[in-house]
């Protein structure tokens, strides 16, 4: 299984993460994709890795000790007010959480932490939102919801690398 970020690149998307960017990563898990982003932003960039599960956090802390531009935070992405004072405003938000209210979590964090004209990337896991519906229907609904607060730049299906996943790039207006 390869990282969703890499699969998106392979499927022809251009990832809007530059050198010196400050990134907020929601749902960092073991930090595999976070390492990729760490290289993208370079030594002058920074990543805040947020995850709620203590089990993966143990491994993530080890990774963050190795890379000197990553910081681990054990918080629930659904409650951004809890870590509001712990982090700064960011240039990019990358979200990969398998929750039913993914888009709502995304909205809260984008509104709270993203700078103006900053990019926000959402990895949409359609199976977590609705098991029965077709993935395209779920995507339509999510896009409609997203357009209320951001501009959707581009999106792509992540098959054949990941099933039932969409990679959506947005920009804050």
């Amino acid at each position, binding site marked *: 299984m390869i990282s969703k970020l890499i699969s998106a690149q392979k499927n022809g998307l251009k990832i809007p993460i530059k050198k010196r960017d400050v990134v907020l990563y929601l749902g960092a898990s073991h930090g595999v994709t976070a390492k990729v982003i760490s290289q993208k932003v370079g030594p002058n960039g*920074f990543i*805040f890795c947020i995850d709620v599960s203590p089990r993966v956090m*143990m491994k993530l*802390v080890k990774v963050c000790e190795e890379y*000197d*531009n*990553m*910081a681990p*935070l054990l918080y629930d992405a659904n409650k951004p007010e809890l870590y509001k004072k712990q982090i*700064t405003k960011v240039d990019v938000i990358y979200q990969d959480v398998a929750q039913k209210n993914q888009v709502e979590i995304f909205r809260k964090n984008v509104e709270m932490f993203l700078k103006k004209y900053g990019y926000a990337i959402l990895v949409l896991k359609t199976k977590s939102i609705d098991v029965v519906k077709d993935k395209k229907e779920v995507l339509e609904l999510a896009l409609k919801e997203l357009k209320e607060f951001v501009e959707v730049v581009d999106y792509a299906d992540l098959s054949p690398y990941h099933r039932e996943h969409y990679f959506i790039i947005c920009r804050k207006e």
Partner: protein
Amino acid sequence: MPKFRELRELHIANTKEKLSKLPDDFLIISVLRAGNEVSRNVKTLELRLKEWYMYYSGKEDRVENIAESNFDKNLADFASEIMALTKLHENLDSYLLSLMKRRCPKLTSVSNHVLGARLIAYAGSLEKLARMPSSKIQLLGAEKALFRHLKSGNKPPKYGIIYMHESIMNSENKGQAARRLASKIAIAARQDFYGVGRI
């Protein structure tokens, strides 16, 4: 970027501290699962051993006796390994008991420690168990039967994994016993998590 460097050090230290202060739920679940795995393997290994022993002596015997027999060195070694695993299972069980007594004494006294740990494992944590209604605790582990009932109108299930408690197994009216035990477990879990007098 000195600001971010300081921030990173701070977050690493904070997260480590948070991780070290986690409740024992995860430990309890791990110990429970390790114990289950060991006991299941001991049973299969014992079967293998007895089958092998039959080849030499033509009869069944206890593992302890096989370990002292002198038919085959490998066979005796095998038997003593199984005895070591049995001992390991006992140790894990008493460790689980001590963990459960420390984390949730009331739940341990209402149900037994293995059932309590299984309920915590099913719910995910003691907090989630404490927030469950007793009817849900009663049916934990019987989801398949419950949804079959909701879908097709078959008989509803009376109990889930709490069936392993002896008060239900030995009772005449199992549904009533399950209901009663589940309500007591719900109260005990809440008292353990929130403290007595706060429910």
